[in-house]
């Protein structure tokens, strides 16, 4: 049943939309983990966006500093962002000064509208604005087809554009932002808590959930080296456990992406067409990742498109 049909039925039934059982996720409080002093993370499940999960599928959270709060990732829908904001308000009444948009994908971006009343500094990669201008409306339409009209949230644009790097000072802690070259997407921004050495690589790091390639395979492998150079021991990945050891997690990711690169190159060299390559490339990775079946073929398609011009 489509979201549209369920809305119609709801209206015929005289129910208000917000009381629908499918919206139950919005009423439940988030379960947060304090991964460092004043650093809270909600772990997203390894699922695709559904009416039931409200696209609350990414790892999102916030950092409480002396002078205010920084939102590390906003969530996948307006409701997801609202729940995150409610959790912040349970813990502190300090102003929400900064909201980080780690990249263009909806499961990370659409919670931003929930922070409109805080008038925060919205931080994004310099390529995020054009990416949102190009895809925002498209993503919103697609998301509302799943969640129902008005339930995605407005597209929020960054007010602070990061080229190279930037630093955010919360009074007692400084957060260092890095704008990466095209990798997972064209606009990946990572963040390092300089005090604790905790890294927020966002979707530059997938753990357990199969990575999704929407930027450049070669670029991603290069940016993994850049992440290693930041010297962080622990990280909050964009998908996966709330906190992980950086080295083994990056090693797993590198193994997947390297297999994807090497075997796609081999397929191209052997004149194996793209439609056959999707079923043969990097199959050794199949058992190692959740949602492999759903995303891997598409990753091969992306890789093939990128590498066939080498």
């Amino acid at each position, binding site marked *: *049943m*489509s*979201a*549209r*049909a369920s809305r119609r039925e709801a209206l015929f039934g005289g129910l208000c939309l917000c009381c629908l059982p499918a919206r139950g996720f919005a009423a439940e409080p988030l379960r947060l983990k304090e991964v460092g002093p004043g650093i809270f993370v909600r772990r997203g499940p390894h699922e*695709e*966006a*559904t*009416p039931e999960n409200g*696209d609350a*599928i*990414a790892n999102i959270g916030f950092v409480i500093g002396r002078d205010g709060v920084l939102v590390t990732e906003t969530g*996948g829908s307006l409701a997801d962002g609202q729940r995150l904001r409610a959790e912040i308000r349970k813990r502190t009444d300090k102003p929400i000064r900064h909201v980080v948009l780690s990249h*263009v*994908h*909806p*499961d990370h971006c659409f919670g931003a509208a929930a922070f409109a009343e805080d008038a925060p500094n919205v931080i994004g990669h310099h390529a995020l604005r*054009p*990416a949102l*201008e*190009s*895809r925002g*409306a*498209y*993503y919103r339409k*697609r*998301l509302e*087809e*799943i969640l129902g009209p008005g339930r995605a949230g407005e597209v929020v644009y960054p007010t602070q554009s990061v080229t190279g790097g930037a630093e955010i000072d919360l009074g007692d802690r400084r957060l260092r932002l890095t704008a990466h070259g095209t990798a997972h*997407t*064209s606009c990946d921004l990572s963040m390092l808590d300089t005090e604790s050495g905790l890294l927020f690589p966002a*979707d530059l790091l997938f753990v357990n959930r199969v990575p*999704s390639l*929407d*930027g450049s395979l070669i670029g991603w492998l290069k940016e993994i080296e850049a992440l290693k150079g930041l010297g962080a021991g622990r990280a909050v990945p964009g*998908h996966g456990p709330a906190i992980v050891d950086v080295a083994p997690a990056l090693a797993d990711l590198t193994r997947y992406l390297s297999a994807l690169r090497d075997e796609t190159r081999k397929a191209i060299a052997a*004149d194996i*067409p*793209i*439609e056959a390559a*999707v079923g043969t490339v990097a199959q050794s990775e199949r058992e190692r990742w959740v949602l492999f079946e*759903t*995303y891997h*073929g*598409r990753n091969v*398609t*992306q890789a093939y*498109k990128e590498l*066939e*011009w080498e």
Partner: protein
Amino acid sequence: MKNTLLLALGLTLSAAAINGPAGAAGASDGDAERQARWDEIAKSIFGARKIEPTDTLIQIDAPARALDAALVPITLTMPDKGRIKGVHFVIDDNPSPYAAHFRFGPAADPGELRLRVRINNYTNVHAVAELTDGRLVEATKFVKASGGCSAPMGMSDEEAMRGMGDMKMKFAESQPGKPLEATLMIRHPNFSGMQMNQVTRDYTPARYIQTVSVTYGGQTVFDLDGDISIASNPVINFALNPAGKGPITVAATDNQGGRWEHSFTAPSPSN
């Protein structure tokens, strides 16, 4: 996968994964509606000419559900290749359904043809072969995909147009007397006219490869009329008649006056 959306990856994948009437225009159409649409399209292309169904003269291989609606690989097989004069490929529910028309010349081996297309809706695709005796025969296949024509490119128009008109040709290992398989790659965004420009937030005007002419030693391999349904950076796999020799030339034009020509050398068969 019912009623779910692969938003984490976003873009065209999400479109391909939607499995409900809300997400996929054309998904709920009945057979009669689909037939009526095809009849109308067929009439506009072929007039009153009769088109006979075939299971043998032309076959379509396409994914039942596209992994990427903006890049759907299509293979057309024509085993009785001596009888094939040309092929028309139609994506019934695309905004501009007539995707491609290939006319083969004496230097072609028209046994197999592969191309990559955009698919915007759940749709039937049709391949109509024109036979040497003047008859038309058709094969059809249903493909689930959506949003392939409107999906943003994921880069700026300037980036997408970088190197426009560059070409590559790759050859499979050839054997004497066997058709020589070739892959033609053309750098071109093939803007569909349905993709939004990032800066102006206006639609990027359609700019697509309109014609491709391939010759081998001065003889025609094929002439192609293309359209907005061809995927960006078009890739076409075809085969050359083993009797041919000499340089392979490719001349391509787009609908905005772009014109590019490249020449390639076929490898000599290894004995």
